[in-house]
């Protein structure tokens, strides 16, 4: 089986806060790979970065042969991601939602109709697919969100907390779906903190804590290594050990919450507005007889300074790759 994802030293920083810290792992086609960790471990940020919604600060990942930094659109064509937010277009029916996303993925005609029909059957959506999505229950919305994210039949399917907030029956449908697509040779990446689901489903798991991968292995190997009976126990043991090792990250998280600063973009916009105002006053002033031309030029010159600073600020912010 070929490797469909290779994550290499992936790092993501938000205003000095290290959310993902040099993460490395790889996963193969036909595998269900679990990304496990407590809330705030950096799972969603890692997945968003792999899916090219966020740009990495450093490092990269290769998805189905495409680099997330230099070929983001090709990556998105081969990846399907179910996010934690299952928002759907509520003024549209489920079918209209699927057609819209299908078209955005470049599908049309019979291929799109077939794809929609197959997903409707697979996820048991026939009863409500033509009703307005605004009237759907959480379970129905979740099914629609799954169908939407895999409408283009991607090689890699990422599920971020797919069973959160669902009842048992809806959860089972989602789990069955993940198994089925994995059997069809797709790579499924499951991000969850539900250890029971992960233990049943995943071929291999990566334990993530405080932005780092603590370990990657099969569930059986991990249990054997830690001498535990189930994955939950294994997880607690590994994460607890990691807490002792990395006090620096905790400090970094704490300091982040205490820092309140204006975003650089807002600052740049503010400077640009000040600049436009000053230059505008200068130009308008020079048109008036009662206004000294010299003073007008002083305004124009004064306006150029914040504009120059704003541009430098924007250039500094323009770090990272194209999205």
């Amino acid at each position, binding site marked *: 089986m070929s490797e469909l994802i290779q994550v290499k030293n992936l790092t993501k920083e938000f205003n000095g806060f290290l959310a993902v810290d040099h993460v490395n792992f790889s996963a193969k086609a036909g595998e269900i790979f679990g990304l496990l960790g407590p809330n705030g471990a950096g799972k969603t940020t890692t997945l968003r970065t792999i899916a090219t919604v966020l740009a990495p600060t450093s490092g990269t990942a290769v998805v189905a042969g495409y680099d997330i930094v230099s070929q983001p*659109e090709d990556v998105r064509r081969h990846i399907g991601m179910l996010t934690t*937010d299952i*928002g759907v*277009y*509520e*003024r549209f029916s489920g079918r209209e939602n699927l057609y819209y996303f299908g078209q*955005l993925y470049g599908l049309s005609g019979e291929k799109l109709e077939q794809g929609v029909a197959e997903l409707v059957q697979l996820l048991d959506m026939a009863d409500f697919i033509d009703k307005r999505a605004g009237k759907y229950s959480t379970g129905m919305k979740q099914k629609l969100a799954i169908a939407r994210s895999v409408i283009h039949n991607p090689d890699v399917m990422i599920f971020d907390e797919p069973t959160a907030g669902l009842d048992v029956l809806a959860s089972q449908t989602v789990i069955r779906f993940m198994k089925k697509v994995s059997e069809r040779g797709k790579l499924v990446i499951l991000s969850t903190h539900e250890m029971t689901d992960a233990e049943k489903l995943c071929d291999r798991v990566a334990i993530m804590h405080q932005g780092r991968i603590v370990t990657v292995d099969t569930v059986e190997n991990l249990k054997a290594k830690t001498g535990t009976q189930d994955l939950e126990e294994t997880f607690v043991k590994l994460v607890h050990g990691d807490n002792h090792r990395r006090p620096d990250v905790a400090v970094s998280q704490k300091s982040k919450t205490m820092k309140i600063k204006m975003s650089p973009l807002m600052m740049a916009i503010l400077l640009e507005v000040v600049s436009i105002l000053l230059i*505008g006053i200068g130009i*308008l002033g020079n048109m008036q007889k009662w206004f000294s031309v010299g003073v007008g030029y002083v305004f124009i010159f004064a306006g150029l300074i914040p504009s120059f600073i704003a541009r430098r600020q924007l250039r500094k912010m323009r770090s990272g790759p194209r999205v």
Partner: protein
Amino acid sequence: MSRVTTIWKKELRDGIRDRRTLVSTIILPMLLMPGIIIGMGKLVTWQISQVKDQPVTVGVVNASSAADFISQLHATKNVAVTEITGEIQPEVKNKKVDIAIVFPASFQTAIEAAQPVQLEVYQNSLNTKSTTALTRLTTVAVQYNQTLLQARLAKGNISPLVQNGVSLKTTEVASDQEIGGFGLSYLLPLFIVMWAVVGGQTSAVDISAGEKERKTLESLLLTPVSRLQIVFGKFLAVATMALSSEIIALGSMYAVFAFGGGDLFTATASQSSGLVQTSAVGVNFTLQPQAVILMFLVSILLVMLFSALNLSVAIFAKSYKEAQSYIGPSYLIVILPVVLVNMLPGFQAKLGFFTIPIVNAVLLFKEVLVGVYNTSHIVMTIGVMIVSALITMYIASRIYRREGVLFKD
């Protein structure tokens, strides 16, 4: 381009299904413009008739000494005359009478001796009826003087024509259409700018901040569509909504002028030889086809500029409500200078003013409406507007690439 079209079509369909967008983009301009014009017309007519038919009471002191004057006062419509015997000022202040006039006891004697007589008049500026009463009293005084003068001239066998030393005869060189266009130049540019801003606002908020609030933005960003394509598709949808709103608003405004708008406007409309001609009471204008084309072209540029601006501002918000609070003040910032430039009487704009986006559009509309076609003004306005619209669209696309803005939570 097909993905841009897909987003554009979807956003339009979504907008039409959204009651808020539908009301603010289509229904409101359709009803508001006729409402404003007909309503204002009715209000003005009502106000005029109110003032005209308003009865006023004139208090008189020593009425018996000015019998002729009093009889003329009695003959005036909606004027009641009452004798004041006590103190004058409290009567006027307490609105028992609207105005008071004091005739001196020697009034008749002085008039007969052809001596000037000064009448004391007491008015109350806090009472609106007092002003009406003063106007009517002045008219009576003028008529009384006229009658008196004619009687005196007749007595001395002098022709009444001697009082007309010089008289003026004016000839208007501007046509009725030009005068109508001049009047319209105070109204139309403001409405065009207003609907270019307002028309796309609800749509811009719904498809940017609304998309964030409904948590659908991330799923859109996960598709292989580039951010530029997403912004462009959304921008086209907002611009389409704003332009539709603009056309509906101006269309309904034209319909009111053309097909009658209550008491103030009469309906005489004709369309001949490519000219759109409309006449109404006080509003009689002709729009040349080139003026319509030019104004439409600049309106499209205005719509593009404001759509990109609205989209850029609204995306900073996390929710629909927050976006509305951002867009509200931004509307004022845009509209205030426009109102100022629009209302300055006799303002002659130099070429430099045509470098200011939005303001230049208003100035150009004002010129075109009175039939002035200044090539340098037209070229400068269109050039500046195109550049401004492109810059704003570029800024919008840059903002849509900022992670901090898209994932504010």
